[in-house]
């Protein structure tokens, strides 16, 4: 008997979700855009500021930009560093210790990240409230010279002592023009990235926390819990977005925290419905029955067994939810709601509004940044959805 063809048994491994995601061009562009936005937000002082990155004037090398770090700057920068750390560790851990299994590798990574988070928190929360008095603008504007003075690419801070070039149209020195106070629009936009991203992420986290918890309970336990949650979902869905937000914010002090909370509270029904659907579907599957037969508690089954499988559509929804959160937040800021100190893109548009008809760049660029961010998020969301969808539709 000649050799039986066993090739059918050694099928190539089916592509993982990430691989399927990577194959799609547009969503990858979106992911790169998002990554870029994160980098911009984290490294804002290095990209747009009036403090030089490197400075030497005979007394050795200084890093003025770091000296001017606020607590906020530190957290973003440290967060960026932690992300880099995680990335490189995941890549090189395998090389250093090939014997580590994927699970152990993940544990090590979590441990490292935990330590990093603790260190960052310790340093960050005790960050001194320093007032920096040194002014490096003369080096920029040509008043003084130094042997080494490397300014950030956009050598203007978001707020400066009023310059003389108010309402300048876009030029080489001010790529996106200037506003009424003479501040560089691009610099303000770069610094506005932070609050926009922060609001989106926080709102979504709130939304997911509530949505997953309630949806899982409703789908898994059924009965009156399900009925109650469904009613709740219906009630919350009845409130149109802005109406609810305005109604609630009318009663509350205008802190950015409330804005984030409200947006999250508005979107949880969507996540809850999805989660509920998944849990409903899976609670009758065999692996759940097996887990129960082993004596596992309901909570453990829900969290360790069903939830990892149910997360796929939730993550897709979360991505789209972030896009929506950014739209809502910028809309609110545009209307003037929310603290004036929070320089989000919507806020910029709101501030620039009186000058729109004489300075078109004030309306186009900040709005474009919102648009691009939303596009990036939507692209990634669609890419995830197509990657997770077993039925390849295109």
């Amino acid at each position: 008997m000649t050799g039986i063809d066993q090739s059918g048994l050694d099928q190539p491994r089916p592509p993982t979700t990430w691989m399927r995601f990577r194959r799609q061009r547009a969503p990858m562009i979106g992911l790169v855009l998002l990554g870029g936005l994160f980098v911009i937000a984290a490294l804002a002082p290095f990209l747009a500021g009036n403090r030089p990155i490197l400075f030497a004037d005979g007394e050795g090398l200084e890093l003025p930009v770091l000296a001017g770090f606020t607590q906020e700057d530190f957290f973003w920068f440290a967060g960026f560093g932690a992300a880099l750390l995680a990335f490189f560790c995941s890549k090189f851990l395998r090389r250093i210790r090939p014997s580590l299994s994927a699970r152990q590798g993940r544990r090590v990574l979590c441990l490292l990240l935990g330590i990093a988070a603790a260190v960052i928190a310790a340093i960050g929360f005790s960050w001194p409230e320093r007032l920096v008095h040194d002014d490096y603008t003369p080096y920029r504007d040509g008043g003084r010279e130094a042997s080494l003075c490397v300014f950030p690419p956009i050598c203007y801070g978001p707020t400066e002592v009023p310059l003389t070039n108010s309402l300048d149209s876009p030029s080489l020195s001010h790529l996106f023009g200037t506003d009424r106070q003479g501040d560089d629009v691009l610099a303000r936009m770069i610094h506005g990235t932070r609050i926009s991203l922060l609001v989106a992420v926080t709102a979504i986290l709130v939304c997911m926390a509530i949505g997953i918890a309630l949806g899982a309970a409703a789908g898994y336990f059924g009965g009156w819990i399900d009925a109650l949650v469904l009613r709740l979902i219906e009630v919350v869905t009845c409130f149109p977005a802005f109406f609810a937000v305005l109604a609630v914010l009318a009663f509350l002090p205008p802190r950015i925290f409330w804005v984030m909370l409200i947006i999250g509270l508005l979107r949880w029904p969507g996540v809850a419905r999805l989660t509920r659907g998944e849990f409903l579907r899976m609670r009758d599957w065999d692996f759940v029955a097996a887990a129960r037969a082993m004596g596992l508690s309901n909570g453990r089954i829900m969290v360790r067994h069903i939830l990892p499988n149910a997360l796929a559509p939730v993550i897709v929804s979360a991505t789209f939810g972030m896009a929506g959160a950014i739209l809502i937040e910028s809309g609110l800021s545009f209307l003037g709601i929310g603290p004036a100190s929070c320089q989000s893109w919507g806020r910029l548009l709101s501030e620039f509004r009186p000058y729109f008809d004489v300075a078109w760049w004030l309306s186009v660029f900040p709005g474009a940044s919102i648009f691009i961010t939303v596009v990036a998020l939507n692209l990634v969301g669609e890419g995830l959805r197509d990657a997770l969808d077993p039925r390849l539709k295109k």
Partner: protein
Amino acid sequence: MLRYILKRLLIAIPTLIGITIVTFCIIQLAPGDPADKSEEESVVATTFSGQVTREVVERTRQLYGLDKPLLVNTRVWESDRDEYRELGFFGRLGAMFTDAQYPIWLARIVTWDFGTSYQDHRPVTGKVWEAFRVSLLFQVLSIALIYLIAIPLGVLSAIKRGTGTDRAISLLLFLLYSLPNFWVATLLIVFLAGGEFLDLFPPQDLSSSDAAAMGGVAWLFDRLWHMILPVICLTYGGLASLSRYARSGMLEVIGQDYILTARAKGLSERQVIVKHAFRNSVLPIVTLLATLLPALIGGSVIVETIFNIPGMGRLLFESFLARDYPVIMAVAFFSSGLVLLGMILSDVLYMLVDPRISLE
């Protein structure tokens, strides 16, 4: 069919009650006693327009009975309460349930008594109704346009799947879907409505300032001309999302067996699409009305504010600025009720259209 509608309305009642509860909870956030709160927390101190005074706070308190207990008033039984002295036993029993915040609020809602506006002392119901009429026009027009354009667009895109037309349409819809509506409104005004560029449309209001002097047809045209930009802003978002749903729904339908059966019978492609595919793909789109409505109503705040249209959205915003709580609560409640109505409507429509739906 009537039974179904009745049943559906019945199911909606708990939701309606839920809405009243939520709005009630929102009221609870209202400043009760400004003296209690710290300077930073007090709404009086940090209000947007600075117009809210202690007087406002006091009036809110009286309006909503904020000093009374929330649900059940057990104070009626206390002997040293003057206000309950004259009530007999049954009177006290009744008061226990009706003289609390929530029952008071509920009773007033049922009788359409939303109080009077803080700003101009007019009855709130009247203000809301006026604004509603304006918004209604725009919403209905928007919805009609959305469905009229989205369905053919989606179907066309699905039929021509993979071709350049499909890809172009999909790209366009995707971009539309991602545009912030206040940015679009702003850009439209900056570039098309005066300013340094084109001047094709009026930047705001419902009618020109000299509209009253125009004749009937001219007045109508003037109105329509003013409505174009706001309607565009309201419509494009829902259009984008509905088109995509129409497309994916159609694609799913086309892949079904019964389409193959229809083709195997010898029907022409056009007959297959129109008679078989289309009818099935339209079904889920009907239910989308329920999700479209809150989005439209929500979007109206920005559009109406920017274009200065006296609708519910702008009313809400102005009341927000002025901390005109009665109006705010009324608008919030009313709009939620509208959305609920829209949901019921879409369910009923769906039942009419799909033979598989029966009374469940």
